[in-house]
């Protein structure tokens, strides 16, 4: 064991044992971030803050929530919303937070796609990020079931039913997921377990992986420029702060994030207190009733685009039923973003608007996703169904075309 000399201060005492000095340097004051970035690079920190807010508000809710189909609805809507002091506040923060976190995730993801931050060494950042997206989706879905309102029940019913379309094992799989033949108490208790324990644990672990994956390739920048971090860091430490292309995570990078966070929180709290219906659907204030199908069933807004890909195929093509086609398209939609680093065959790491072909692809995708999202909520009748079909086909086509488009782009720019 190393020799420990008498510590002169509390700080030193801890430093001897935990290496605080070194730790802070590595994590904060000498963790280098490029200077040439904009507010979109603050989304990661916003997500970290949002996750913390969700975790803390969730703990308060957990103290009063009762995972039982006979008690769940009232434990949320009466006990928490009316009896517990500021229980309503935690519920609003949690429910609105769960919705807003997806808005930020989407911005974060599409920022990554726009600036090409998923390739040339950043593949693991991307993959871990997509894992977080999947985990957050599972967290959002399981959480939405807990208040046991009409939409909780029927969204759970419809979404679990989707798995029934899988050949051979479908029927058994649905029963396995629900723990019963229909959505019931056992479904609620298992999704409760997932929501409050298993998925949050997995998210925590994956966030650590995501951050770790950032260490070696470093964060991308506005021009997709690759440079020598050690040399730039040395410049900074030597006092050439203006000339250096990097800044330390603390305090320089974070000071900007705090500023962005402040205005983001203003937006978030406005929604929490004054404009929450989009996140707390009124229909869900009707108690779950398995015998009373609501006129319109739709998932939370952040699932609408993939839900629409599922619904888009509503008729048989080449002897395959619409249901099966939808399921296949849905499965592809879930997985395809994972493949971005390999579908993009162009060597360019540049903002999309500076890439001759990719820019069209990117904005096309944005428009298509918005159309899918909106039509995912509208009743799938008449022309709506056809718009859904066309935009689903477009979505799949975009990803089939991506390797060819980017390959051609690579040729055009000649490997730059």
């Amino acid at each position, binding site marked *: 064991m190393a020799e420990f000399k008498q510590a002169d201060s509390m700080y030193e005492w801890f430093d001897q044992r935990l290496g605080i000095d070194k730790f802070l340097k590595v994590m904060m004051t000498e963790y280098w971030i490029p200077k040439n970035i904009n507010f979109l690079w603050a989304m990661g920190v916003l997500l970290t803050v949002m996750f913390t807010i969700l975790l803390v508000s969730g703990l308060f809710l957990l103290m009063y929530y009762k995972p039982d189909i006979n008690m769940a609805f009232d434990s949320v809507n009466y006990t928490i919303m009316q009896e517990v002091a500021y229980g309503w506040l935690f519920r609003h923060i949690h429910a609105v937070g769960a919705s807003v976190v997806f808005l930020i995730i989407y911005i974060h993801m599409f920022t990554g796609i726009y600036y090409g931050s998923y390739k040339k060494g950043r593949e693991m950042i991307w993959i871990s990020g997509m894992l977080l997206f999947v985990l957050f989706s599972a967290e959002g879905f399981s959480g939405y079931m807990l208040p046991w309102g009409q939409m909780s029940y029927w969204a759970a019913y419809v979404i679990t039913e989707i798995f029934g379309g899988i050949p051979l094992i479908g029927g058994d799989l649905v029963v396995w997921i629900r723990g019963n033949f229909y959505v019931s108490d056992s479904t609620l208790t298992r999704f409760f377990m997932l929501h409050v324990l298993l998925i949050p644990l997995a998210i925590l672990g994956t966030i650590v992986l995501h951050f770790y994956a950032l260490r070696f390739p470093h964060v991308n920048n506005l021009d997709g420029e690759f440079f020598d971090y050690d040399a730039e860091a040395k410049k900074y430490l030597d006092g050439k702060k203006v000339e250096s292309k990097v800044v330390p995570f603390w305090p320089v990078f974070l000071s900007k994030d705090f500023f962005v966070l402040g205005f983001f929180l203003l937006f978030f709290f*406005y929604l929490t207190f004054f404009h929450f219906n989009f996140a707390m659907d009124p229909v869900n204030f009707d108690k779950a009733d398995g015998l009373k199908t609501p006129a319109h069933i739709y998932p939370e807004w952040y699932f609408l685009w993939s839900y629409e890909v599922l619904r888009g195929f509503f008729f048989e093509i080449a002897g395959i039923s619409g249901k099966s086609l939808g399921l296949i398209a849905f499965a592809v939609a879930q997985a395809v973003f994972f493949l971005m680093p390999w579908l993009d065959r162009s060597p360019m790491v540049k903002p999309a608007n500076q890439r001759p072909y990719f820019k069209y692809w990117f904005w096309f995708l944005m428009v298509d996703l918005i159309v899918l999202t909106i039509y995912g909520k509208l009743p799938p009748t008449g022309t709506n169904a056809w718009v859904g079909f066309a935009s689903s086909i477009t979505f799949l086509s975009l990803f089939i075309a991506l390797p060819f488009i980017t390959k051609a782009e690579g040729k055009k720019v000649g490997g730059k």
Partner: protein
Amino acid sequence: MKELKILAVLAVLVGITYYGIEPYAHHEMHPPVAPADFTYNGKQEVALYTKTMDEKLVAATENVAVQTAELAKATDAKAKEAITKKLEKAKSEVATLPETAKAEAQRRTDFWKTANHTAALEGNVTNGKVLVDANCIACHGIDAAGMPMAISNADAAASYGVVPPDLSSAATIYDAKYLAAFIASPVDAMHIQEKYSPESGKTFPMPSYNWMQPQEIADVVAYLKSLSVKKLEGKEAHKATFEAACGRCHSMQYAKFESTTPADALKTYMGTTPPDLSQYIKSRGEHYLHDFINDPQALLAGTAMPRVGLTEVAQHDVIAYMEEIGDPKKDERISLGIYTLAFTLVFAILGYLWKRKIWSEVH
């Protein structure tokens, strides 16, 4: 500045998406209906009726075309006979529908005209009391006149299907024209003619007093108006109105209020259990309730819930009560919200100043 431009692009994309999935989608899923109308002159009801019958006629006409085509295709004699029968029926429907619809529309218009006329008459309280004592208290209690219900709620529910409400506040909470209409023909006033159609074989538990002269009905209304009920204010008034108007069918669990009619009796009487209204201010919202209570059929065609004929003030009380019970933290939410936003604004500005200071060194 470049970053503001990016922010603007972001705001546009998010704004379009939001517009599509909230205001636009809701508009598509719940097309607007005629707003609540407290005139009680039957105009909206008749317009709705005429529209429904027109739709029925279109459907029937289509059916004739369908059956005719079927008949042309059919080869088997037996099938032909069956289709011919259906065709005859459809044809006779097409032939008679316009006439029946017109007659019924006229009948309803006249009905409300009479009710309006009745309500305008000067009533005689003494005569009204005689009529009420002879006709109404067999079923209804009138606490304000010292005449409570003669039998228990359970027995009343067993006899009439639903507990007849106490009439003490009837003249305050129900519109006078509605009340006159209701006494003359409850089914017409409540706009539940469909449920109690001659073909249904059902009879409404309260008789129609259409044998009474308009003057006599006006006397009954005058007597009910003369009853001195304790004037309540604010929340107490809201609660009392709710219980008098809705309490025979609906519970309000979060206020520990149970419907006076037992739940299983209600299910038999209504064909469906009236929902507990604790959270309906949230699930339906004030706007929907405002239109729905005034005329349920306009929003939920064929619903078992009757029109209850409240005055605008009484209906306002009912909705206020639903909000007091369903969303009691609203005031706290708004005031805390304002403080939180003010505090966050300070935080954001400090964040901005701090960022300016730090970044001035590296730029």
